[in-house]
C-alpha cells in the first residue's frame, strides 16, 4: 500500500523514502531519521501544526507537516481516519477508542478488535467498510473513524 497516511496522532508508519533530496531531507537524515525508521505521530499543535513525531531510542522531534509533504511513510497502524480514501484494501481492527457509547455502537457493527474488514472507496467523505463477504456495508464518519485504530491485515 503506497498511499500516504495523514499525520494524525496515534498513526505509526515506516519511512520508505523522502521523495526529494532537499535541505529538509538532509536535515532529517542527519538527526537519524532514515528510511526504515518507524515513526509515531504523538500530537499536533493547537492550530493543526506542527507535528510531534516520536521514534524508538531517541527524543521526539517537532516538524511542520507542510515540509513533510513529499515524505512517503508506510502505514503500520493508527486511526482509520489517517488513511486517505484511496487506501482501499484489507485491514484489521486493533482497538476501539473513545467513550462507551461510541465503542458499543462501533462494536455493534461487528468492528471488534482482531476483526478484519475491507476498506471500500469512500463516498461523500464517509469511510465504507465491509466486514464479511455478504455483510452489509458499514459507513463511518470522520469522528468515528478517528477512534477506530486499525492496521493492515
Amino acid at each position: 500500500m503506497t498511499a500516504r497516511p495523514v499525520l494524525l496522532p496515534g498513526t505509526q508508519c515506516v519511512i520508505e523514502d523522502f521523495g526529494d533530496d532537499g535541505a529538509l531531507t538532509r536535515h532529517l537524515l542527519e538527526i537519524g531519521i532514515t528510511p526504515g525508521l518507524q515513526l509515531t505521530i504523538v500530537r499536533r499543535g493547537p492550530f493543526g501544526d506542527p507535528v510531534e513525531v516520536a521514534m524508538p531510542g531517541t527524543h521526539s522531534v517537532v516538524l511542520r507537516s507542510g515540509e513533510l509533504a513529499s515524505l512517503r511513510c508506510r502505514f503500520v497502524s493508527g486511526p482509520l481516519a489517517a488513511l486517505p480514501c484511496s487506501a482501499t484494501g484489507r485491514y484489521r481492527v486493533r482497538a476501539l477508542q473513545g467513550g462507551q457509547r461510541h465503542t458499543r455502537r462501533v462494536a455493534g457493527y461487528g468492528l471488534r478488535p482482531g476483526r478484519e474488514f475491507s476498506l471500500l472507496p469512500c463516498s461523500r467523505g464517509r469511510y465504507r467498510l465491509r466486514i464479511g463477504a455478504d455483510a452489509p456495508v458499514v459507513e463511518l464518519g470522520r469522528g468515528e473513524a478517528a477512534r477506530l485504530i486499525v492496521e493492515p491485515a
Partner: protein
Amino acid sequence: MTEQRRSVTVALAAIPNTGKTTLFNQLTGARQSVGNWAGVTVARRVGHFELGDYDVELVDLPGAYSISPTTEEQRIVERYLMQTPPDVVLNLLDARNLYRGLGLTLQLAMSGLPTVVAVNMMDEARRQGLDIDIDALSRHLGMPVVPIVARSGEGLEQLKAALREVIEHPETEHPPHISFPPVVEEQVMELARRIDALPERPPLDESLIALQLLKGEGEQEVLDPRVPGSGAVVEEAARRRRTIEAVTGQPFATTCAECRFNAARGLAMEATHALPRVRDAVANRLDAVLLHPLFGLPLFFLIMFVLLQVIYAIGFPLQDAVSSLFAALDGWLRALAPLRALPPLLRSFLLDGLVAGVGVVVTFFPLLAVFFVLMSVMEGSGYIARAAFLMDRLMHALGLDGKAFINILLGYGCNVPAVMGTRILSSHHNRIVAMLLVPFSLCSARLQVFVFLSAILFAPSTAALVLFGLYAGSFLAVVLVGLVLKALRIGGRPEPFIMELPPYRVPLLRSVLLRAWQEIRAFLRRAATLILSGVVVVWLLTHVPADVPPGSAGTLAGRLGQSLAFLFQPLGIHWQETVALMFGFIAKEIVIGSMAVIHGGGDLAAQIERLVTPLQGLSFMVFTLLYTPCVATVASIQAESHSWKVTALSVGQGLALAWLASFLVYQGGRLLGYA
C-alpha cells in the same frame, strides 16, 4: 619528561542538548571567554584547564548533529575540524539519546582524530532503570568511553584521566569500520587515493574526506580550492556520486546516513540491550497538559504573563534603584569643586555626555540579570521548546519559528535583552528577522511616555483607549513588518524547522547565574562602546553651542529640528518635540524629561496642554512607538548581528514606518475634523 608545560587543544563536540555547556563549565570553571565564530552570529567559547603537565585549551563547538554544512552551526564545526583540527576531540553523548548522538560519534571516529567519548546524564539513565554497557560501547568504538554526570561532576576525574591517556597515546585507538554497500566502499577508496595524492589536504582520514566530498555540498569547507588539483578531485567526486546513485537508486546523502545510523542503532542496542523508551511518565503527563490542544496556549500565555510581571516587579524597580544611585553619584560629581572649576562645555561633556552614557549602560545590568535568569530557567527546563511547538503555526506565517515569539513578547518588557536573546534561535535567518521585529514591541520605557502624555491630553477613559490602541498598533507593526521582511527574504533563506523536544529538567542554579553574568559581560564588552558613542552624539547635538540652553532653538539639535520641520510639519510634530525625539534615542523615558528642558522649565503638563493638541500628541506617540528604538537596542542589534547593514535597516525601517504611520494618523485625523 621535561618540566615544560605543553599545551593541547581539545574540542568539545556534541549534538544539541547533551549538557555540553554544563560540562564545559565544570571543566573550565570561570576560566573561559565568549566570542564569536568568524563572521557569524554563533557564540564561540574557549576555556582552559590543567591536566597534569598539560595546559588544555577547550573549544566549545556549536551543537551539531553531523559534520556537514546543512546548518550554520554544523558548517562551523565542519570548517573547524577540517581546517584547524584539534589535538583531541571530546565527544559528549546523552545516555538517553544514544542513537542520535552516536551518528556524530561515528563520523568523528571516521575522521581519525583521537577521540574520548563521555556518556552524560547517567543519573537520568539510572533513574529510568536504563543500564548502559560502557565497556561494550568502548569496545565497539575502539576508543575510551567514560560515564559522567556533568551536573554533579561525577566521573570527571576518570574523564580527565582518559583524556590524558589519549593525549599521550593517541595511536591506541581503533575506530570502527562502518560498512557501506560495495559500490560505495569501492568509490570511496578510489576517491580517497586521489585525495591522498593532493599536495595539501586536511590532516583527517582520507575516507572521511572522500565521503564528505561525495555528498556534493560545501566542498570548499573541505578542500581549499586554491590547492592545485582540488578542483579535479571535486569534479571526480561528483562523477563517482552519480556512479553510486545509479547503483543504489537513491541520493548518496541518504545512503550515507542510512549506513551510519544503522551502525549507530546497532551500537545503541549493544549498549542498552534494547532501544530504550525515551519518554518518562512525568514528561508524558506534563506534555499532556502543557501541550494540550485547547489548554496549552492559554497556559503558555499565563506563563508569559507571569514572566513579564516578574520583570516588571523585580527588574524595573532594580533598574530604578540603580538609576537613583547613579543620580546621587551625578549630583555628588556636579558639586565637586575640581569639576566645577572646569570650563562649562567640558564639564557638561563629562557629566551630561560621558557620565550619562555610563549611566545608561549600568542601569541595564539588573534588568539583563533578571531577564536572563528567567530565560535560562525557561530554556533549561525544556519549556522553551514546548512554547515553540505551541506558537509555531502562527509565527510560521511571519517566516519565523515558534521560539521567536518569546523574544518578541519579552520585547514588551525591554527590547535590549529581547534582542540579545535572539541568540537562542535556531538559524541565522530567524535571528536576523527576530531582531528586526523586536524593536516594534512596546517596551516599558515607551509605556512611561505614553502614560504621561495620554494622561495630559485625554480624558481618563479615552487615555485607556489610546494606550490599548498603541499596544494594538505595536502588534500590528510586528505583523506587517514581519510579512514584508518575509516577502523581501531579508535574512536569507529560512532553514527547515526541525526541533528536538528535550526532556523536562530542573535547571541548575549555577548555570542560570553564570549565564546571566556572561550576558551582562557580553553586553558591557560589545554594546557599551556604541551606547556611549550614541549618548555623546546626542549630547553634542543638544548641548553645542554652549552659550544657549540645552536643546533650545540655538543648539545643533534645535537647528536640525527646525530644518527638519518640513518633514515633521505634516505629522503635527513641532520642532521642540523633534528635539525630544532626538533625546529619546538615548532612552525613551528621557523624552519627557527632555521636553521639560526644551520647553524651558515650568509646569510641563500645562505647557504641553497649551502647545499640543490631542491629535498632535497622538501622532507624536505613534512616532515614538515606531521610530528607532533606544541606542542600547541599536547597539545590541549591531552586537548580535555583527552587521551594520542590519543595524541600519533596523533604524531606517523604524523611521520610515514611524513617519508613515504618524502621517496617516495626523492627516487622517484632520480629515475627520480633529485639530
